[in-house]
């Protein structure tokens, strides 16, 4: 059983004629958009100025297809680097890759990357943020010593955990890495993405047969997840012509590497890359026309403060 509240009949008619002592009959009081004065109109009355201040789709961006494809290439690139990492791990697990080889090649790649990074840094940035080679060497020494010292411990960490659990955890963590990656600004690495990737690499590395394998795997993970995005960012900033080339190279390497292990995986990766790089931008551009945002004076005020005058 429900009760209905019947409203009382309206106190005022929609168009009223006020018969005051001074005004002539037939004159209507103009409606003003205020609520603090009693007016002869109901509270929800609107006049012909209604929705004049409505604006549609303000600040909408016009996307161009190929520019979006170029940016989406970065996402595809990240997926491929994860695939490269997994390939290396698969090779190590099957014993096809010796840890020594991986270590030396990682070292060579790191040195090459470091050189490239230094070359690409513009002069102005070098002077304003001097980070000496000594500091970099110190960081590298800390990484290597810690990893080498902890690798026996890390090797026995997941001994008692079942293989399925380890694979599941790694998969979840790598997915989290891809989702949380700061695609717009990868240079200061995002905490969650880097940590998730490192956690997954530790889980996977502890499954390998020896502690040297673990050490090699972790160094490789550091290279792929922590240092490569910094280089890419530098490349994107200072040599924008070569950036798409690098992305395409990584994607091909990912698909090819995975293909040498399992064709199904390569196929999946290829499909994923194609959809992310070509299909999703198409959808984005095509669906823009259905966008319908309205703005008006009812929006929350945004304070645009210019703080640069405070920073001097």
């Amino acid at each position: 059983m429900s009760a209905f509240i019947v409203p009382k009949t309206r106190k005022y008619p929609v168009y009223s004629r006020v018969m005051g002592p001074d005004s002539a009959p037939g004159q209507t009081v103009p409606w003003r958009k205020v609520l603090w004065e009693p007016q002869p109109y109901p509270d929800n009355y609107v006049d012909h100025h209604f929705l004049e201040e409505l604006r549609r789709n303000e600040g909408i961006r016009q996307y161009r297809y190929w520019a979006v494809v170029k940016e989406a290439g970065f996402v595809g690139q990240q997926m491929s680097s994860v695939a490269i990492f997994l390939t290396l791990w698969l090779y190590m697990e099957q014993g096809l890759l010796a840890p020594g080889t991986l270590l030396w090649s990682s070292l060579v790649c790191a040195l090459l990357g470091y050189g490239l990074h230094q070359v690409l840094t513009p002069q102005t940035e070098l002077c304003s943020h001097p980070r000496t080679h000594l500091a970099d060497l110190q960081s590298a020494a800390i990484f290597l010593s810690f990893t080498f010292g902890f690798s026996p411990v890390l090797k026995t960490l997941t001994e008692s955990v079942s293989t399925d659990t380890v694979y599941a955890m790694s998969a979840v963590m790598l997915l989290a890495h891809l989702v949380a990656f700061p695609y717009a600004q990868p240079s200061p690495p995002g905490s969650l993405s880097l940590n998730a990737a490192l956690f997954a690499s530790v889980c996977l590395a502890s499954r390998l047969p020896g502690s040297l394998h673990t050490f090699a795997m972790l160094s490789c993970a550091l290279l792929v997840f922590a240092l490569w995005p910094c280089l890419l960012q530098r490349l994107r900033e200072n040599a924008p012509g070569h950036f798409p080339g690098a992305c395409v190279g990584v994607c091909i390497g990912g698909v090819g590497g995975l293909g040498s292990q399992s064709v199904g995986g390569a196929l999946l990766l290829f499909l994923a890359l194609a959809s992310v790089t070509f299909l999703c931008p198409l959808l984005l551009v095509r669906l823009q026309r259905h966008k319908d945002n309205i703005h008006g004076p009812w929006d929350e005020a945004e304070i645009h403060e210019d703080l640069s005058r405070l920073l001097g």
Partner: protein
Amino acid sequence: MVLKIFFPQCCNLADSGLLVGRWIPGQDSAVVLAVIHYPFIPAQVKQYIQQSGEELAVLGSWSLPKEGQEGMESFLRDLSTIFPQERWLQISRKMGKMDGEEEEEKEKVVFVHYDQKKVMLSRLHPVHMEDTQTAVVFQTVARSQPLFLLDRYDDGPLRSTHWQTEGREGSILVELLKRASVPLCLLLNWLMSVWTRFCRLRAVSGGSCKVLLSSKLSTCIQLSHRSEHMRSISSPGAASSHIEFTRKANTVVSVLVDVALGILLMSWLYRDEHVAALASALVPAADRVATELEQLLQWLMGAPAGLKMNRALDQVLGRFFLYHIHLWISYIHLLSPSVEQILWYGGLSAGLGLTFALSLLSDMVALLTFHIYCFYVYGARLYCMKVYGLSSLWRLFRGKKWNVLRQRVDSCSYDLDQLFIGMLLFTILLFLLPTTALYYLVFTLLRLVVVLFQGVLHLSVDFINSFPLFALGQRICQPYRLAEGVKFRVLCEEPGSALHLLMEINPLSCSAVVQTYRTPASSCYPRDSWAALVRKLFVGELVYPWRRKSSKAD
């Protein structure tokens, strides 16, 4: 308006005379305390009344007509001129009925009969309610004790009737105790001062280590407690109030019962070579405990309950604890020749009271299970550090950190090396957590068992210390002494005559007696609520579940 007259039962059959008592101010009632018979001299009556110091007065006249005393009525009525009062009661009794009337107005009168001796000796609870009518009645009767010292065998100038008219009551035992208590108190006082001086000397020479030990050993706590009791008993002044007297009596009785039980224990212990039997059973018992612990550790080092532990850490922890057990057993074996001597001398302490024997037992249990306590502390510290590290590194995982200044979690941009090393440590701690947690759980359970046993001993010691035996005995043997209130029974209700009620004392219930007269002992009660205890156990904080109320170190 109804006039209430509280009339003592002993005066129901008294000869005619003057009524002496008190008008209760503000209420229409009067308490009759005694009847003074003819012949009397008014000045001496006044002197007699002033004895007790209360606002007593002559209330009126009482007449029990006998043969040969026909003129008594009019004589008694004329007495009102000698003792001028605002109101004058005239109560007369014909055998079978009692009537009272006031001089000027014939009001409705209610007679409340009370047993004078019981009301005088009784004490109303709760003690601080002084202004109810009942309390005033009790107080008046209690304070009029000097009035009741005049019995019929006295050669004084007045003859009166009250509950002690037939002769003063007293018990030989009580009188002897009262006489003997004064020199006993002096002796106790002197002994206590000697003991205090001795203790202070020892404390000064021993230093802080002794202070720490003495605050942890329950025997020392019990000793200090008992000496406090003795000091309170042996204080030279008499008890100022009923409550203080009851408390002192409770302490004395509990000490005596304690000593009696202790001597009983001693007589059992030193007979039939029980001491030797206990001593010879003690070392094997300690050995068995150690073997059981070793077996437990071996089980943990394997695959306990099917859980998969990290083998390396398992081995490390297991071997560490096994080595500790080995050390402990060597100590016990070192001590084993002198165990019997220790037990023999320890049994002597039962002479001081059962509580001392129990405290000594609790201390010995604590010493014998010291290794369990050590294991618990190690396990708890390890676990606590792990949980703390894990929570901090979990925040690093999400890119946040704890702001100590604002006491909240803030976001933080970490360096690459911080992230890397933090991540490694997080993974290690996370995967090693089950192993540490299991060790912690096992040793915490063991520790809780020991603590529970010690807690039972402490609770029984506290029970003996603080249970008010004397008050309970009083409640059972003389229930009128501890009154909670009064109840009225109708004696005679006839239209046309006054209403007669009998006031009976409602004794205090046993639970209320225990609650009011409990000696405030150093009661040990749980320090934390269940929720706080569980939370502390979960986080790994060290748990000391029993708290002592009077200890300053806490």
